[in-house]
């Protein structure tokens, strides 16, 4: 008796799930999908992105919507995991979204972009920036954040020209994003006539980097550049200073977070330089926006909030241009974008979906805060 009632109940659960799955938007609204990590280790980043996207949508809906239709957002959690990401992407496709925005971890964006490509839905990626994404040559995937090679170039220029560095050490945390950036920085430095005295990977889950840093110290570098995330970055800075390694320490955009300074300790972090996509607090025109964001969500915008806000505005702009919510028309309109104004300056795309112009800026830590470097 028990066995078959069990199977029956499984069938019941299954059919229930399918029923709830059905039901999609009606003709009076435009459905836009948001894919970002809202659970797992990067949950905060995803939430910061979602907030900014919601803010842009609320603004336009407050003005009566676009093309006389209101925009409705559908959120899907990719948990920064490739497997969860394809499921999330398929969920959005099933919801008949017109376009998709989001994408924080490159490793999750890679498989998801394949799903959107085969479904013909445009995606505006507002954080992830691995070079592997454009290498697929998908015509409907657009990267609003400059890719690793642009950042590598910005970092190289700063270290070689501004710091007058010759001997550079590069450390990465062995994740897709970090290795990619590290490799490109190494190549750029060598091309610019600098010398890469040490190129190493560290385990981001470890907390003791002294052995690597002793190795760095022995090479007496003029600058050390870290391409990983802020948690390990903070510890590296702290132990870097403890050991008294020569030269300055710099980090890439993944480490630009107030927590980096807290982990490292204010004294240790002083003078650390960073390459970063434009944060609202560094852009004169974005001061008011940051304030609005804080009033609305009771917290400061995250590193990718501004880009996500601009990404959503870009999609709205494309909807207006295309005068349609057909995915293909939106793709076409985004590809044809010319000089669309964002916090980081005017935006347009190359054929592979990356920005024509790098938007990276140099910032540095002063008195425990990140500030623009003049």
């Amino acid at each position, binding site marked *: 008796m028990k066995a078959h009632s*069990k*199977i*029956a109940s*499984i069938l019941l659960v299954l059919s229930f*799930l399918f029923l709830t*799955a059905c039901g999609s938007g009606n003709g009076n609204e435009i459905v836009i999908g948001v894919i970002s990590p809202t*659970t797992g280790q990067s949950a905060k980043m995803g939430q910061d992105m979602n907030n900014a996207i919601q803010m842009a949508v609320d603004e336009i809906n407050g003005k009566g919507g676009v093309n006389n239709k209101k925009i409705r957002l559908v959120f899907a959690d990719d948990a920064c995991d490739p497997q969860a990401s*394809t499921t999330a992407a398929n969920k959005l496709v*099933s919801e008949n979204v017109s376009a998709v925005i989001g994408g924080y971890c*490159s490793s999750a964006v890679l498989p998801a972009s394949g799903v959107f490509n085969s479904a013909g839905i445009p995606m505006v990626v507002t954080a992830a920036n691995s070079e592997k994404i454009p290498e697929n040559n998908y015509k409907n995937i657009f990267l609003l954040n400059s890719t690793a090679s642009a950042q590598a170039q910005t970092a190289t220029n700063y270290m070689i020209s501004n710091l007058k560095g010759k001997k550079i050490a590069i450390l990465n945390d062995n994740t897709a994003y970090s290795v990619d950036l590290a490799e490109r920085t190494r190549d750029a430095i060598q091309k610019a006539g600098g010398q890469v005295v040490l190129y190493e990977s560290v385990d981001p889950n470890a907390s003791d980097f002294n052995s690597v840093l002793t190795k760095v110290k022995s090479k007496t570098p003029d600058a050390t550049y870290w391409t990983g995330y802020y948690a390990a970055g903070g510890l590296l800075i702290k132990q870097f200073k403890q050991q008294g390694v020569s030269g300055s320490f710099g980090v890439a955009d993944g480490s630009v977070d107030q927590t980096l300074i807290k982990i490292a300790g204010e004294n240790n972090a002083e003078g650390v330089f960073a390459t970063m996509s434009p944060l609202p607090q560094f852009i004169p025109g974005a001061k008011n926006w940051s304030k609005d964001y804080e009033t609305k969500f009771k917290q400061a915008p995250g590193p990718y909030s501004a880009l996500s806000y601009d990404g959503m505005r870009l999609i709205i702009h494309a909807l207006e241009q295309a005068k349609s919510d057909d995915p293909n028309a939106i793709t076409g309109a985004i590809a044809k974008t010319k000089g669309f104004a964002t916090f980081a300056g005017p935006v347009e795309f190359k054929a592979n979906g990356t920005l024509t112009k790098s938007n990276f800026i140099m910032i540095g830590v002063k008195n425990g805060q990140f500030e623009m470097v003049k």
Partner: protein
Amino acid sequence: MNTPFLKNKSFLYILLFIVMIAIPLITNRYWTDVASTAMFYILLALGLNIIVGYAGLLDLGYSAFFAVGSYTTGILTTQFGVSFWISIFLGAIFATVLGVLIGIPTLRLRSDYLAIVTLGFGEIIRLIANNSKFTGGASGIYGIPKPKIGSFVFQSNVLLYYLMFIFVLLAIFVIWRLGNSRVGRAWKYIREDEDAAEAMGVNGLYYKLLAYGLGAMFGGLAGSLFAVKMSAIAPESFGFMQSAMILLAVVLGGIGRISGVILGAVLVILLPEAMRSFSDWRIFLFGVLLVLTMIFRPNGLWPSKKETEEMDDPEPLKGGSKSVVS
């Protein structure tokens, strides 16, 4: 009273089969994707069940075999233009060989040591995938083509779902027959009491290796299918969490029994999808579930087999004091 019950049960199995066939036809892309994920989890869980459920060896690094299958298909199809069908075959062979190579020195160890060794080994495989050039390093391999027969390409999710379904049916058939054979019984004897099994002439090491190799093979198969389904693979997918989830699938439904393992795999995939808003609670709840299952229902959620009394020899026997076999 047995016959109507049996009929009822097989009726339900047929119904289940029809539902499984119908899923992509009556639902949307999302549920087809979830169902495909469930399919390949079933395959993984069935494979791990040979090792954990049948032979009683705790393997905490099963995702290593799954990684070998994935990377074999990923590398061969993208860099050498090898057909998927050859790559899945080779993937299964590599996984099996690796399983045997790892098994020879480690299967002599005590069961708890084995658990940690397999865990360490799983991490080593993940790190190799992460640190090596030929595996695409940390960003993995992308642009893996879909399988095809002649000019027919398994392009859509639906076709891939059916492909996986066929593999799952095949696996059920093979593992069910193995489980009910001399080999399957030998595994269970080892699981129940290795010394006693040895005393009955069962070569423990040989059968443990066999279980390990076969389990690895199914892991490799599932890995190849995973690679073509995802089209991009990265080392993140092959960590300890993956191994733990597969283990949970095996334990939750009913360790050692095919129907239980399938139920477990479906639950492990379906529950988090059904409770998306609780997803932060997911792994916590899974951990608690593992503990509760072991304490209260060590044989899993699937109902246990009934014991039967048989008629025979008139000579009555008086039992002594009741005891537990230790």
